């Protein structure tokens, strides 16, 4: 009986793999393949030289920054510095912000943690700028390049600072918060891109989103404290711009989250609560929204679905007796829940800004 079953099993497998091999027969014709390759290789490639070479040189020369900062502050006073804060790529004061003010802030930051936090916030700000430009229809190739170059620079500086952080817990929190923010903003940009009817700008949006997603997708899922670290400040900011969303429970959940993190069942419950809370936030927005807000809501729902799926998978993994695997999936679930939260609130803020309100970072 057993032998018959083994033979049947082998026959089944053979049939299955025969089918799989047949699927692998699907291919392009040789003509399609050749023409496609020729077309791709005919696309223009980027020049290694750009008008941003000076910026890059400045980024590598701390003395130049210092001198320029001193000159600007002496000549122009603090007015220019504060006026530059709301500037976007293409504005006259944008170079002051990114080449002088921010590097000076970084120089003045005393600890590696403070430096890493600053670089992380600069990187997030670059993406918010891209979002703002995109929603205004002003994101062109040169601005995309400028933002992506700066984003790469912030990430490098962030990694250097994090490498100098002694406490591994702190560096994990910093890393995870950075990645959650990158991924959430990548998703927001993608969402803006899908709404965009201008194909040219859409390409630029995709380039920034892809870069952000790449920067946010390497390494592990967030650790225990990232949820609290990410959600509480975001929730607090949102109350200012979206009063119809109740944020108190989110802050409360985030606090509870840290206290109870050692127990997996409680952790599952709290992730569940956070997912429900974000879903409740979505429901409280109402139906009278713009197409962009609708897309943000759709994307948030999808990310929440992923969080729920990982939570379900974690339970399944628990049932299989794989505690370590379940733990990793819980982290994945946390990451998606945090991403959904940042995405929803950043999207709503952008939407408010797009109606002529002041920029909110």
């Amino acid at each position, binding site marked *: 009986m057993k032998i018959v079953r083994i033979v*049947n*099993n082998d026959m*089944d*497998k053979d*049939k*299955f*793999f*025969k*089918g*799989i*091999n*047949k*699927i*692998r*027969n*699907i*291919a*392009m014709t040789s003509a*399609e*393949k050749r023409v*496609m*390759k020729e*077309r*791709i*290789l005919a*696309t223009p*490639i*980027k020049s*290694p030289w750009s008008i941003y070479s000076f910026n890059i040189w400045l980024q590598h020369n701390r003395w130049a920054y210092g001198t320029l900062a001193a000159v600007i502050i002496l000549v122009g006073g603090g007015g220019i510095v504060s006026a530059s804060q709301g500037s976007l790529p293409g504005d006259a004061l944008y170079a002051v912000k990114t080449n002088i003010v921010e590097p000076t802030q970084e120089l003045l930051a005393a600890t590696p943690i403070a430096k890493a936090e600053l670089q992380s916030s600069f990187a997030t700000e670059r993406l918010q700028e891209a979002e703002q430009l995109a929603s205004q229809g002003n994101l062109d190739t040169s601005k995309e390049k400028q933002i992506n170059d700066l984003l790469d620079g912030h990430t490098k500086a962030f990694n250097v600072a994090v490498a100098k952080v002694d406490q591994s817990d702190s560096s994990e929190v910093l890393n995870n918060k950075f990645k959650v923010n990158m*991924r959430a903003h990548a998703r927001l940009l*993608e969402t803006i*891109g*899908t*709404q965009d009817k201008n194909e040219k700008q859409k390409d630029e949006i*995709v380039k920034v989103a*892809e870069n952000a*997603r790449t920067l946010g*997708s390497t390494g*592990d*899922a967030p650790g225990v404290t990232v949820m609290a670290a990410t959600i509480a400040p975001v929730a607090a900011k949102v109350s200012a711009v979206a009063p119809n969303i109740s944020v108190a429970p989110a802050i409360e959940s985030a606090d509870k989250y840290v206290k109870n993190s050692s127990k997996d069942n409680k952790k599952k419950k709290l992730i569940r609560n956070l997912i429900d809370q974000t879903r409740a936030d979505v429901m409280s927005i109402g139906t009278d929204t713009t197409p962009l807000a609708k897309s943000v809501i*759709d994307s948030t729902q999808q990310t929440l679905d*992923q969080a729920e*799926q*990982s939570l379900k*998978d974690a339970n*399944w*993994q628990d049932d299989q007796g794989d505690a370590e*695997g379940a733990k*990793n*999936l819980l*982290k*994945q679930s946390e990451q998606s829940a945090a991403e959904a939260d940042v995405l929803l609130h950043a999207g709503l803020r952008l939407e408010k800004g797009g109606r002529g309100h002041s920029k909110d970072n």
Partner: protein
Amino acid sequence: MNLKSAQNQFEKIYDTESDAIFRFCLMRVSNREQALDITQETFTRLWQTISDGKEITNNRAFIFTIAHRLIIDWYRKKKAVSLEGMENEETGEPYEPTDEHAKENAEMGAEGRFVLDSIKKLSSVYRQAVYLRFVEGLSPPEIGKILEISTNAASVRVNRGIEELRKITGYAINEDSADSKQ
């Protein structure tokens, strides 16, 4: 990197992987022309990345990831213009005019069609993980990277997908055999 060596690197990847990407796209968009377009766009981005001097650590995961995102984007766009809502974004089944598949059906034969149809019947969460594991022979870390989930989550999806696939096909398939018959 000079242009010549960038081109050599690109051509090497293109020659080995273009059919797999085309297949992956065709399976999900169910339209040959569209699958060709997405394949071309995927490799255009690969070419730009290589010619830009950027380093890619895992070519397969990189191009599958790009293709995966372009397909999602395609569904979103399609959803936005669709009047009848015939497909549901990424998770749902696209509408599938059968005559467009005449060529692929001939290439696959009945056995291939049966297995592919069975994979397509899987829940959307498991479908791509199972396809990438068995048809393209990708590892769970690569699948995780492409679908933007952890390696662990990718393994779970493959295993749970196999459970479903066993019920649909009646075949005794297991995960261990995914690599053995590549």
